[in-house]
């Protein structure tokens, strides 16, 4: 008798299945090129990973949130151990051959632990935040969540893998928000990063800095906090550009390549242009499944991983894009609802953290293919080819189905 988990969240699972089917079809299409290579066969491998992922998801959905909560710490510690291990025995692959993202034994690549670390961080952060009686109200009070995200984040940046690092930041702020941290505090916590981004436009940074000063004056945090905040923003906004300019161009380039291995300006510029050409030339109805010329003739780089959405755009046109984004959007709106109706703060935070992780992936990856985001090498959930990532996506689906099943409002039968 499994009465406690009836009914299961079938709509959620159905969206995930639909997206996965869509994704596998696109991986198949990605392999259809005029000069065939190994990509022609990878859709079968992807299917195997889907099978594995679905099985793991089912298994997870049959456990309980309490078990998951209990497992959070060992999973987190295990993930950290793997990440540390990677720094010594990690290997690279594909366009990021110089990085250490892969765990390999005897030359056989087993997977990318950073994908699993994303889930581990969500779980651990949820556990810590839900254990606190009150939401943090000061910057210094954020040290514990910051540490939980910061340690794996630093380990991942050391690989280096900027994309995954970005996902961690998205998850971190999203979960703080969901736990009830006030928005002025969120803004203050994020302010040094914003300063760094704005640092190269004097006017924009100046405006931001004034805004921050006003915010500090209004919120009146502890004087030390205020000083650290203003100081760090000043360093990011004024000192960083000065230091940057004193670097030689080759040093700047090295730093950029360190932050993002695929950032060889010429190569990434080419990728960006070809991706946009593929998408734009798809037009409203697309060039037809498997027959996109940009993809067929190998003008589109990484067409089966990071740039798979450009294949959607080229071959299925604006209609296909709308369908894919629509499915993703509906799925996430539903998982937000799952988070809102979860049975416990931990479950709610896990659901919302996973949603945030998915959303960051979609926003950065899809934004990258159309030129809204820099190229950071981040995969698209359910679409991009990759075993660990497909596994991680379906583990997330399993967790979400589990949380949904245990949550409130099961009986109202509402489907978004």
């Amino acid at each position: 008798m499994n009465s406690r988990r009836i009914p299961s969240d079938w709509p959620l699972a159905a969206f995930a299945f639909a997206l996965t089917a869509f994704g596998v079809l696109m991986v198949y299409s990605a392999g259809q090129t005029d000069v065939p290579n190994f990509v022609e066969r990878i859709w079968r491998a992807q299917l195997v990973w889907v099978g594995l992922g679905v099985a793991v998801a089912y298994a997870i959905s049959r456990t309980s949130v309490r078990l998951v909560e209990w497992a959070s710490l060992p999973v987190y510690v295990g993930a950290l151990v793997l990440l540390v291990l990677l720094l010594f025995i990690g290997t690279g692959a594909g366009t990021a051959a110089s990085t250490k993202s892969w765990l390999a034994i005897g030359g056989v690549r087993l997977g990318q632990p950073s994908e699993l670390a994303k889930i581990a961080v969500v779980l651990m952060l949820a556990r810590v935040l839900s254990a606190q009686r009150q939401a943090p109200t000061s910057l210094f009070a954020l040290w514990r969540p910051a540490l939980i995200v910061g340690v794996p984040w630093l380990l991942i940046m050391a690989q280096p893998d900027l994309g995954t690092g970005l996902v961690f930041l998205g998850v971190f702020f999203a979960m703080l928000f969901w736990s009830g941290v006030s928005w002025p505090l969120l803004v203050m916590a994020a302010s040094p990063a914003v300063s760094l981004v704005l640092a190269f436009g004097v006017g924009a940074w100046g405006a931001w800095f004034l805004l921050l000063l006003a915010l500090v004056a209004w919120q009146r945090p502890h004087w030390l906090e205020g000083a650290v905040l203003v100081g760090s923003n000043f360093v990011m906004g004024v000192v960083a550009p000065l230091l940057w300019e004193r670097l030689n161009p080759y040093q700047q380039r090295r730093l950029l390549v360190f932050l993002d291995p695929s950032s060889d300006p010429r190569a990434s510029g080419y990728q960006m242009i070809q991706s946009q050409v593929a998408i734009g030339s798809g037009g409203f109805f697309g060039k037809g499944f498997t027959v996109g010329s940009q993809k067929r003739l190998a003008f589109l780089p990484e067409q089966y991983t990071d740039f798979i959405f450009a294949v959607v755009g080229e071959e299925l046109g604006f209609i296909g894009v709308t369908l894919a984004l629509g499915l993703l959007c509906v799925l996430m709106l539903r998982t937000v609802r799952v988070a809102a109706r979860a049975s416990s703060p931990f479950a709610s935070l896990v659901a919302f953290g996973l949603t945030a992780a998915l959303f960051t992936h979609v926003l950065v990856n899809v934004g990258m293919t159309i030129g809204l985001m820099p190229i950071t090498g981040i995969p698209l959930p359910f679409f991009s080819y990759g075993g660990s990532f497909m596994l991680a996506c379906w583990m997330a689906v399993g967790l979400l189905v589990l949380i949904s099943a245990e949550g409130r409002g099961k009986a109202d039968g509402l489907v978004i």
Partner: protein
Amino acid sequence: MSFHPNEVQRRARVASALLLAGFALLLGAFFRAQVLQSARYVLASEENRLREIPLPAPRGVIYDRTGRVIAENLPGYSISLLARNEDSLRTTMRRIGELVSVSPEQVGAAVRRYHRDRSRPTVLFGDAPFELVSVLEERRFDFPGLIIQSAPKRYYPDGPAVSALVGYTGEISDAELGQTAFGEYKAGQQVGKDGIERQYESRLRGREGIRFVEVDARGRVVRENAREDLLPEAPQALYTNIDLDLQRFVHEIFGDSLIGGVVAMEPRSGAVLALHSAPTFDPNRFIGGIPLSYWRELQADERRPLYNKAIKGTYPPGSVWKLATAIVSLEEGVAQLDDHMSVPCTGGYQFGNRYFRCWDAKGHGDISMARAIELSCDVYFYQLGLKIGLQKLIAGGIRLGSRERSGVDLPAENRPLFPTDPPKAYYDRLFGPQGWTSAVTLNLSIGQGENSQTVVNMARFYTALATDGQAARPEIVPGRAERIRLFDLDPKQMAELQRALTDVVGRGTATSSRIEGITVAGKTGTAQNAQDAINDHAWFVGYAPAEDPKIVVAVMLEFGGHGTRAARIATRIMERFLKARVASMPLTEGE
């Protein structure tokens, strides 16, 4: 932790709104690219995908006056490569070299073509031999990016017989590519290099076609005929005034032993019937790149086969120019055709402390101007020149076109050499103020001295003598016939002058060249030259039939000895032309 349901609902609404906003932003960006700006990207993707392979166009066929082919196109093949870089080009050439022999020059030429224009496929072999084509066709898949296509190849059925006239074609050079006249040309294209081919390049050049092939990101040809070909277009044929039969005949007479130039033209229309320079070369061997050995052979030949002796070479005209002296005399009223000079010819003439010889040491006695023309008496013309005076002689010569190009429609005709007016300034500049005497007048009056004429320009001068004083511009392609009056004599003078020219062949210096049934008029010339003290240039310029001239022929034999040799050739050319006309005329006119 505040997880009050209301709080959570509020956060869920904010999160959902942010989510929707994010997706809306993405969708908006895709809408912009895929719907609003799609056309731009479609173009970019087509540019990625398609490479344009030029399909060479055939050049216009060149015909003679009766529709016989002077230049045509034969089917040929060219082999080109869509090269990604110089290395891949060299690799491909090396691998072709494993199959057939490829010279380092061919590799070098291909590399040069690649660097000149990388947007087009690089021509490796502009005129590929058939065995190479078949070998490469078999191994097509071993050579990605290789394009084998038909390329019409220029062919001159009469080869050496028409080379001075038609010129040849060749690959456009770097220097030409830099000129505005060749602004629309691309590296590797064929262009007229000389003769008619060059003069009428714009009319002979066809419109290139385009074949679209699909290439992948690495430049490999994935699919041919990715779109329908735009077929090349041949221009309209070019009809010329040339009489190919006569042209062949001239070539036959000259063979390989004589050196010189010939121009045959109609006296009134200016139509050039034949134009030849000997020795000649085979323009067919120039097509698709001149073999180095052949080029060296032509360059080494001291008879200069590549130098067009009909329009570029200038030679002292000698006695054929005496007619100019005579005309100036008649125009100025200095002496008439029946006037005698004070000193009879005794084989020479004493002028100051110098003795000027007549060509005939026996002397001609006391003769009239008409008789002096007939016998080509130098002593008579020395005195006539002195009577006219240097200034009037030179001014008259200039009026008669001795300083002008004939205007024939061929490239790079040379301007004749002749003194300028006033003569004092000219000779002072040439020899220094004390370096010359009026003895120059004597030389000038017999067509020697500072006078050097092209064969074509002398032909033009004699079209005026054959008619009524109007010279016709020599014209190979009909279109803008033009006659200019060189001199104006009264009909009696003109008739007497023409009779004198007729007598040259009838009983004068060129009697040995008489032909059965046709009266020929003309003038021999035996011109001393600076290059060779013993062998003079032999000239004959004349026309026939004398009573109704149909053809003017100018013949110059370089170091050919006496003018009578040139006269024999000229009259045979006239005979061939006139008798062929008689033979081809219908027996009964009208019906």
